[in-house]
């Protein structure tokens, strides 16, 4: 296997683990962690494609990653704030119990 393939394999695994965590867990904070894993899988892909791609002189890949790390942090911040607000109302972070609206 080439290094690129190994990186892609790892990032796909990371993405799958994150998605599984985000979809199956009921605790909002663990869901948030799953989402961060998924975002980082994307970052890993970018780095791998940049490093092993045809022109690693252009810094496109690494620039994308720097900004998406910033985005991920902002998302974590907003997510944590929302979870605190949620906890204040419901006294739980269990997402299964958060369904007051029905159509």
């Amino acid at each position: 296997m080439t290094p690129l393939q190994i990186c892609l394999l790892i990032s796909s695994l990371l993405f799958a683990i994150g998605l599984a965590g985000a979809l199956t867990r009921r605790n909002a904070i663990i869901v948030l962690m799953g989402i961060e894993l998924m975002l980082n899988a994307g970052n890993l892909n970018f780095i791998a494609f940049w490093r092993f791609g045809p022109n690693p002189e252009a810094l496109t890949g690494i620039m994308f990653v720097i900004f998406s790390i910033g985005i991920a942090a902002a998302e974590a911040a907003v997510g944590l704030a929302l979870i605190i607000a949620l906890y204040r109302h419901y006294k739980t972070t269990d997402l299964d119990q958060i369904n007051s609206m029905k159509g």
Partner: protein
Amino acid sequence: MSSIDYLRLLQLAAPETFLTLTGLMVLAVDLIVGRGSAPGTRIILSGSVAATGCLLAAGGLFLLPVYGTFAAGMLVADPLTVLIKVSLVILTLFTVLLAFSDAAPLADPGEYFALLLFACVGMMFLTSAEDLLMVFLALEFTSLSLYILAAFNKQSPHSTEAGIKYFLFGSISAAFMLFGLSLVYGVTGSVQLPEVAAGLARAGNDPLALVALVMIAMGFGFKVAAVPFHLWAPDVYQGAPIPSAALIASGSKVASFFVFAKVVVIGFGGAPAAVGSGAAPVWVILLGIMAAVSMILGNLAALVQVSVRRLLAFSAIAHAGYMLLGILAGTEGFGPLVYYVITYGLATVGAFGVVSIVQARTGSDRLCDFAGFHRRFPVLAFCMLIFMLSLAGIPPLAGFFGKFYVFAAAVKAGSLALFILALATSTVSLFYYLQVLKQIYVGETADASHWEPVPITVSVALLAMAFGVTLLGCFPDLLLNRITIALRITGF
């Protein structure tokens, strides 16, 4: 490395910079001047700063547009994007005016208005992005502002719930999108849309490119609330503070659909994803299915709704289906799509405005709460009539021409089956819009209590929107000509 001309950047991004500074000023004004004042005064104070900023930005964009491209497509200002930006700022302005109403008890008005402006800035950057990095950044900036706006009412558990649902769905789809974008980068070696198009054409039937397309479609599908990525929409439309819901339904939709169409038409247009087989490219099949399911599910689910905000949510899903037809029609559908989205946004903000008036006075937004609205506020009831009929697509209102042009473009592009489906579901949609109007005009209610008058800004905004919808309906060329000219200059 080429050096960057920062003055040029400032010139091209002047409206965005101005709105950002206005947002910061709103924060400062609320913090310094508004400290210790009554909540009502603070809302008026920070709201009027925000509204003035929107007005100035829209006027500046309209009268003194600057055209150009910055850093190979990171920021593109051409007649088309400027047109979209003007409509975005106007939609935000109406949203700000709606927030003057007493519907949402805003604990921190300064932050609320600042976030509305920041969301608008995000959408404006989104419209002018032709680089996938900027698309992702602007999309996330908009989304993050909207998540907070949706959860802004800290007293209401519904609002928090709406915020967290919006956040969770949104960030999962953002993660999908980032992964898809990374695959696109891997396949094509670039993140600039024209080069991505060339790269995808070269890649041909690469399975990696297919996966990437599906993942990116998921990300955008979430933003525009198309089935099957629509699950957040009803709860957010129902639970979020009404101005937030209005912005999510209008401005966010305008910007997302525009950039979705741009990415698909410029970026993936050249992707012969099913090369040699003679079948349609994969993204056409994918979007076709999304459009069909959105139209069917949205319209059918809206029929049984009791809450008007939920009804508007499902109608928004149905409209997303119609708009996808415009994207499917390719370059032909671009102009009609823009016209459709803008007029749809206008009518939706108006409808939410009327709902906010009713909700502030009855405490809920069920259909039966609208009974007798005509007797209390005849003029506003007439406005609601215009919004609802425009959403349903009755001539001579703007909604009719939007649908007409989009459907015509779809027929020209050859998607006849989808066109017939759209017509049929459109007829169904008339039923639930008329349900609302029936309650307003002939609904019987025993409740004869006095309703407090509507704040002047809200009535002015509603009247302006109703006037706009009627005007654009009677003279669609006012907007459509501009779009056509802008499209020709831009080269679509």
